[in-house]
């Protein structure tokens, strides 16, 4: 079962084609991570899947229906998007922020129901933000702030959540904090999660499915352990590396070649022949 798929999708900014005639499907109930080098169009692809960018041609299908033909509020009940580096208005509390996630369900005659309240409380609980709900969003740490925004997307009560680089600007601790949360949401609540990540090793650890974007199309997609290898990294990132199994998790781990200190003394491997 697929909730999201692209059909002959072409994306462009003006004359510049970013994604060219792409057909992919996002697996239901799994974590999918888009990877690729800077400017390869992975964020653009994600944004278009959240209807933030109109396709130049082709279509994105949500539950089999062309997205651009669906009422945008109906989409907001099935799919949530957390854009990159969202900025909350000053003076907003966590609770106020999370409540905004109920916007697609509000009608002019009914602003707030007990169901809204319940879903907001659940979103605060499952992101661990319940105790911080009265705090100002500005006063939170980077990781907490990102969790507050994720809670807002949870309040949208959608099966699918898209996130554009949810770990950018976060230190390692907070990156793990955010990714653990997303992993749990997928495990416990079976939410389909699609995100853009920069860190290939974290992508391999948390993703069930990886989509590698290169040259306006998808270079490869599949389970990280099936597709992430030396060749893929060379092609997608133009980087020579060794891919080994993560000693703790067993997922693919990329060790880039390059300069730097080498305590093993294997001088031959330091700077291999580039393509």
């Amino acid at each position: 079962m697929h909730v999201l798929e692209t059909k002959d999708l072409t994306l462009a900014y003006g004359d510049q084609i970013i994604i060219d005639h792409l057909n992919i499907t996002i697996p239901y109930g799994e974590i999918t991570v888009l990877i690729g080098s800077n400017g390869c169009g992975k964020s653009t692809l994600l944004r278009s899947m959240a209807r933030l960018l109109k396709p130049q041609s082709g279509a994105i299908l949500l539950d089999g229906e062309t997205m651009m033909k669906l009422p945008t509020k109906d989409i907001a009940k099935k799919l949530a998007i957390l854009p990159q580096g969202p900025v909350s208005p000053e003076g907003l509390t966590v609770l106020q922020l999370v409540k905004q996630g109920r916007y697609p369900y509000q009608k002019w005659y009914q602003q707030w129901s007990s169901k809204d309240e319940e879903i907001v409380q659940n979103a605060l609980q499952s992101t661990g933000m319940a105790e911080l709900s009265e705090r100002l969003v500005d006063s939170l740490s980077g990781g907490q702030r990102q969790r507050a925004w994720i809670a807002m997307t949870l309040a949208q009560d959608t099966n699918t959540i898209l996130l554009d680089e949810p770990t950018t600007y976060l230190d390692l601790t907070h990156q793990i904090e955010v990714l653990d949360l997303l992993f749990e949401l997928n495990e416990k609540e079976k939410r389909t999660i699609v995100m853009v990540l920069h860190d290939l090793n974290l992508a391999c650890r948390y993703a069930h499915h990886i989509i590698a974007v290169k040259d306006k199309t998808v270079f490869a997609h599949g389970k990280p352990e099936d597709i992430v290898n030396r060749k893929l990294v060379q092609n997608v990132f133009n980087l020579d590396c060794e891919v080994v199994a993560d000693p703790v998790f067993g997922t693919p781990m990329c060790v880039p070649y390059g300069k730097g200190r080498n305590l093993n003394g294997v001088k031959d491997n330091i700077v291999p022949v580039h393509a």
Partner: protein
Amino acid sequence: MQLHNRNRKIAGLVLGFVLLLIVNFLSLVLGYTDLTINTVIDAFNHFDGSNEHIIIQDVRLPRALIGTVVGASLAIAGALLQALTRNPLASPDILGFNAGASFFIVIALMLFSITSLQATTWIAFLGATIAGLLVYFLGSIGRDGMTPIKMTLSGAAIAALFGSLTQGLLVMDESALDQVLFWMSGSVQGRKLEILLSVLPYIVIGIIIALAMANKINILTMGDDVAKGLGQRTGFVKLTAGIAVILLAGGSVAIAGPIGFIGIVVPHVVRTFIGNDYRWIIPYCGILGGIFLVIADIGARYVLMPEEVPVGIMTALVGIPFFIYIARKGGKLA
């Protein structure tokens, strides 16, 4: 000092309304011709045709009411613009709306001798729209799109352009000085009640739109992408709110000329009291804007007694330090 609880916010609104009534009443009493409270009451209950009663009914009453309506409109227009552009320095005067409306009125007045109230009002809307569009396009040129600083700069440029064009027209025809002067600084004095009444319907529509859009504007202030993701048709919201701004700013100029700084000062003061919820910001701006302009107008009678200064100069005296303060804060919404 923020009012968090809903009841307190309502209480604050009621208190503000009472204050608005009080300053309106003071505006009837205070001035070059000092009047007593009893005279004011008599002027409405037992009008006797005396000078004092005429002053109250024909001069001071229109002046107080115009101050209230124009102050409210400009403050609400400023709050809307700040939300739409995500720019804390935005307001109808700084983004050139007022200067544009003024210039078009002066053109109509001097070159086409248009003086009818309805025509003047629509010309003001046209001028505000053109100025707004110009600033929008100028401020959006370049790679990084519309930034607060570019928008403020292009607003200042457009305001200066229309201001100097208005002055330029004066050179062509000095006899129009009296008329044109009014459209250069703005004043609530010497305007008849019928002017207010003819523009009031548009302003009321603008205020109703602003109140109805308040919750949608809350969503919009979280950024375009977030708002779209939540299922908002952001283009529609911006267009509708933009129409409200034009009705409010253009309408204000049609009544009182270009009065500055209310649109920037009042929304910021309001935010420090009640936070960032536009469902409260809009009504509070309405009431506080009215109070602010009526007080400024009372002040304008005393600064150079027996002469009066245009109220636009009074609001600038308060507004400029404030503007600098907000700019120094680094462009964050208070």
